[in-house]
């Protein structure tokens, strides 16, 4: 518990963690720079300084932000749909064996059907602009589903019995017992799925090349052998992913704290 007097040190601590994180990132950048110099083949590996310069340049263009926004929007919709659907399906599956059994082959297929086969079927229904949305959904859904289902099945049966006896059911039970017990699983699921969806979504954009998307720029950079651009966009992709993950983690942490501190 934080006492008033501890505030100062807490802030210090936070500063120090941030410093540590930056130091780690810096460490890898240095490794990269040396790697690039050692290999010395600019068409394949560009050093971080050049990449950052290019990225800074890109960041001043409206197209950069528009592309990030469009990609983020579409993939985000797919991802959120997957989180909601995955959680809901896991909840259903945990209650009804028939749902679980019916979903098992579907989830198995989602996990294993290669994009190469899947794209054909998806493009039959949706335009290639929305391919990334569907792919992000398909990628995240089994991750969220499996994690949440395992979390539910690992929920302390003793607490559930307690709820049975006191007649705590439905939403109250979710709120008071499952929320806390499933949360660690949910948290891993969301952070993992976020990264996977984002990456797969971009890959889908590289296939479908809808206008004003990160995937299109990545493709262009690649076919035009513009390695600095390729790396700059890649760095942007990683940065967005890391930022999103940090955001999601922080928001979930805050919500949890709030929820726990209720009188």
């Amino acid at each position, binding site marked *: 518990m934080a006492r008033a007097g501890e505030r100062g040190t807490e802030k210090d601590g936070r500063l120090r963690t941030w410093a540590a994180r930056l130091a780690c990132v810096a460490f890898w950048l240095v490794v990269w720079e040396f790697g690039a110099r050692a290999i010395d083949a600019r068409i394949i590996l560009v050093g971080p300084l050049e990449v950052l310069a290019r990225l800074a340049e890109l960041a001043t263009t409206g197209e950069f932000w528009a592309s990030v926004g469009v990609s983020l929007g579409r993939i985000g919709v797919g991802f959120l749909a997957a989180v909601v659907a995955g959680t809901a399906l896991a909840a259903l599956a945990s209650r009804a064996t028939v749902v679980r059994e019916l979903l098992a082959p579907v989830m198995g297929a989602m996990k294993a059907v290669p994009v190469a086969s899947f794209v054909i079927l998806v*493009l*039959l229904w949706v335009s290639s602009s929305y391919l990334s949305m569907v792919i992000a959904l398909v990628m995240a859904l089994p991750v969220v589903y499996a994690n949440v289902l395992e979390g539910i099945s690992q929920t302390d049966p003793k607490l559930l019995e307690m709820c049975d006896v006191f007649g705590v059911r439905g939403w109250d039970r979710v709120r008071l017992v499952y929320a806390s017990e499933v949360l660690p699983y949910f948290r891993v699921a969301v952070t993992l799925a976020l990264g996977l969806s984002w990456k797969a979504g971009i890959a889908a954009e590289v*296939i479908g090349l809808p206008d004003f998307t990160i995937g299109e720029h990545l493709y262009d950079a690649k*076919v*035009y052998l513009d390695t600095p651009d390729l790396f700059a966009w890649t760095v942007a992709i990683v940065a967005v992913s890391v930022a999103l993950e940090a955001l999601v983690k922080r928001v979930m942490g805050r919500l949890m704290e709030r929820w726990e501190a209720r009188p």
Partner: protein
Amino acid sequence: ACGTTAQEPAAEEEPAADAEPVAVRTAALKGPTAMGLVRFMSEVDAGNLADNDYTFEIYAAPDEITPLIAKEGVDIAAVPANLAATLYNKTEGGVRVIAINTLGVLYICELGDTVRSVEDLRGKTIYASGKGSTPEYGLQYVLEKNGLTVGEDVTIEWKSEHAECVQALATAEGEAVAMLPQPFVTTAQAQNDKIRVALDLTEEWDRVQTGDETSSMITGVAVVRSAFADENPAAVDAFLAHYAESVDFVNENVADAAQLVGDYDIVPAHVAEKALPECNIVCVTGEDMKERLSGYLAVLADQNAEAVGGAVPGDDFYYGA
């Protein structure tokens, strides 16, 4: 280099005769097969062509065109030559080819100056993309006709993307060359001016034609859905007429056409300007088309029947021949 046949004037008269405009939905793949269409597209966008209701869509992946044809979402599509034959076979005659729109666009490139003839490829590794399609069969055909055996005399390493071939070329340790298509050759040269075009595969193909073999290397064709062609022959002919005009324009006004290619986001204008003359954009229809294409497909089928969808297409495949 446009081999337009004599039916052009006839085609131009017909649409005026039955003035019922038809919706003609066209799909093209990003790349040389779409380049010949740019003038046509810009004329339509400018409202200069009102005889039919034309719409165009440029797609990045062949994956997108196949379902569109199956769903009857497009009427005319510009596709790779062997895909056209495959589509014909797989849809049981559901498509017909109306024109050859691109001849060979493949080039052997190297970093250095060691390759002057096909024979010089002996003992080298060729990085190539386009396995299972024109590049594979074209390369194989030319090599074999020159007495080189793939796997023994030359090694081919297949990559899924052109860019990877260039990267492989840049980092290769032994003697290596890459087979690249236009307009990618131009793109690669813009990035690395040491890349030199050593051989034009289209020429090499023509060089090994002997006797009654009269095939030529063909990259892209335009197909029409058979049902559409049966219902609206006039619209197809009108389309072909505009198409031929467009191709003529592109070949004669390279600078303007390059600008249009850039505007339609096919490749940047500066790349297009250099690449257009190398892309062998044509509009060959009728008997001429049948002769050249059937010869080419026969060569392909000879190497791998799967490449043309199982068998050489029948005569009904060739529209207007």
